[in-house]
C-alpha cells in the first residue's frame, strides 16, 4: 500500500510563506491499496486537492475519520466526489454514546455553518460507526482503536500483504501516565500502533510548549518518540504540526525528535504535503 500526505497541519489551516516546506493544509492522507482501492484518512483541507485528482476514479471511496474536530472534517464539503450522484462514499468514524455519526457530521454540514444540508449532497453517502473489532475493506484488514484525545477519537491500523500502517494524528498518550513506566496494555494507542511498519503520529508541541498545553489532546515531540519506541514501530512520521510553527521551527522539532530517538529503525521525520511512502512488510520506503 502507498500513503500520500495531502495535509498534515493540526488545528487550523496555515497557508503562507512560512509554511511552504511542510504545508498548511489540515489532516488528510490518501492510502492506495495494492489493487488501487482508495482509502482516505480524515477530511481536513487537504482533501480538496486530493478530490481534484479523482475524476477518473470510479470505485467506492472509503473515508475514515479519526474524530470530528473541525480540522479533520472541514474539507468534506469541498471533496469533489461527494458532489457527483454517480459516486459511492462510505464515511467511517468513532461512535458516540449519544448521536449517530451522520447527525454529528450534519451539525457542520448544514446551515448556518455550511450552505447545503448533508442530506442534499448528491453522492450516495453511507455512514458507519467504526466496529469494535477489526473489519475488512476490499479484503484489507482495518482496526480502529480508541485513543486519548477530547471526545470520541480513534486511531486506525491498516494491514495488507504483511505490511502495516497506523494513523494516529491526534493523541495525548501521556495523559494516561508515564509512557516509560506503563505496561504496554495500559498505553493508549498501542492497540493500533504496536509493531507497525509505518506510524503517522501527533507531535504538535515542543516539550516546553506542552507544559502549558497538557490536556489539549496532543503530544510533545518527546512523547511521540517515546510512544513510537514503546510501540516498536519501524518508521515514525511526525504529524499534526502546530499552525503557529514555521518551517524553520518544524525543522528544529525534527532535529529534536532525532536527538531523542533510540537509534532503532528509521530516524523520525516530519510529515510534509506531497510525501509519499510505499509500505511493505518490514520496510517503509519513500521520499
Amino acid at each position, binding site marked *: 500500500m502507498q500513503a500520500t500526505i495531502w495535509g498534515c497541519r493540526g488545528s487550523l489551516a496555515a497557508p503562507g510563506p512560512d509554511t511552504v516546506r511542510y504545508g498548511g493544509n489540515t489532516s488528510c492522507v490518501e492510502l492506495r491499496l495494492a489493487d488501487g482501492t482508495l482509502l482516505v484518512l480524515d477530511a481536513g483541507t487537504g482533501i480538496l486537492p486530493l478530490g481534484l485528482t479523482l475524476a477518473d476514479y470510479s470505485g467506492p471511496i472509503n473515508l475514515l475519520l479519526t474524530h470530528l474536530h473541525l480540522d479533520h472534517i472541514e474539507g468534506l464539503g469541498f471533496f469533489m466526489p461527494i458532489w457527483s450522484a454517480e459516486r459511492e462514499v462510505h464515511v467511517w468514524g468513532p*461512535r458516540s*454514546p449519544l448521536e449517530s455519526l451522520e447527525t454529528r457530521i450534519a451539525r457542520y454540514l448544514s446551515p448556518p455553518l455550511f450552505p447545503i444540508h448533508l442530506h442534499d449532497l448528491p453522492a450516495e453517502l453511507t455512514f458507519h460507526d467504526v466496529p469494535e473489532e477489526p473489519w475488512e475493506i476490499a479484503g484489507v484488514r482495518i482496526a480502529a482503536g*480508541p485513543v*486519548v484525545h477530547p471526545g470520541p477519537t480513534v486511531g486506525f491500523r491498516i494491514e495488507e500483504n*504483511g505490511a502495516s500502517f497506523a494513523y494516529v494524528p491526534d493523541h495525548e498518550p501521556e495523559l*494516561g*501516565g508515564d509512557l516509560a513506566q506503563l505496561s504496554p496494555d*495500559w498505553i*493508549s494507542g498501542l*492497540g493500533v500502533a504496536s509493531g507497525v511498519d509505518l506510524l503517522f503520529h501527533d507531535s504538535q508541541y515542543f516539550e516546553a510548549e506542552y507544559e502549558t498545553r497538557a490536556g489539549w489532546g496532543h503530544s510533545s515531540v518527546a512523547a511521540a518518540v517515546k510512544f513510537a519506541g514503546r510501540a516498536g514501530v519501524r518508521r515514525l512520521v511526525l504529524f499534526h504540526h502546530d499552525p503557529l510553527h514555521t518551517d524553520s521551527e518544524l525543522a528544529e522539532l525534527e532535529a529534536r525528535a532525532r536527538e531523542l530517538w533510540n537509534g532503532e529503525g528509521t530516524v523520525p521525520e516530519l510529515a510534509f504535503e506531497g510525501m509519499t511512502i510505499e509500505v511493505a512488510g518490514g520496510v517503509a520506503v519513500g521520499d
Partner: protein
Amino acid sequence: MEGRRQKNLVLILAREFASKLATATFVSDADGYLVFYNEPAEAILGQTFAQAGGMHAEEWAGQFQVEELDGSPLPLDKMPGGIALLERRPAHHTFRITGLDGVKREISVTAFPLLTRTDEFVGMVSIFWQAQQDGAS
C-alpha cells in the same frame, strides 16, 4: 501481525485520574478485578498497591474483612463497590474494614460504575473517607 490488546481507554484514564487524587480511590475493571488504588487509599487499606497487587472482587471483599458498624458481615453485593459492579448504579454506605495492617477503620464509601455507553460497562470507581479508626484488632 496483530495489534496489541489495549485496556479500555476510560479505565486507563480512571487509573491515572485516581493516581492524581488526594482522596482515597479504588478502581476495578468490569469483572471486578482490582486494577489500582492510590496512595491515600493505601493509608486506609493498610498496604501499598504494589504489595497487594491486583485481585478479584471476592478476594478484595474478603481481604478487608468488611462488616457493618454493628459488627454483622457485609456481603459484596451490599457493599457500594459490589452494587456498582453488579447492579451498575452508584451507591454509598458507611461501614468498617480491617486493613491489611490489622487496623479496623470506619469508612464512608461512594462507588459508581464506569459506563462508556448505556450498554458498555468497563469498571467501577470507589472513593472513600476514613470516618473513624478503632485501633488494632
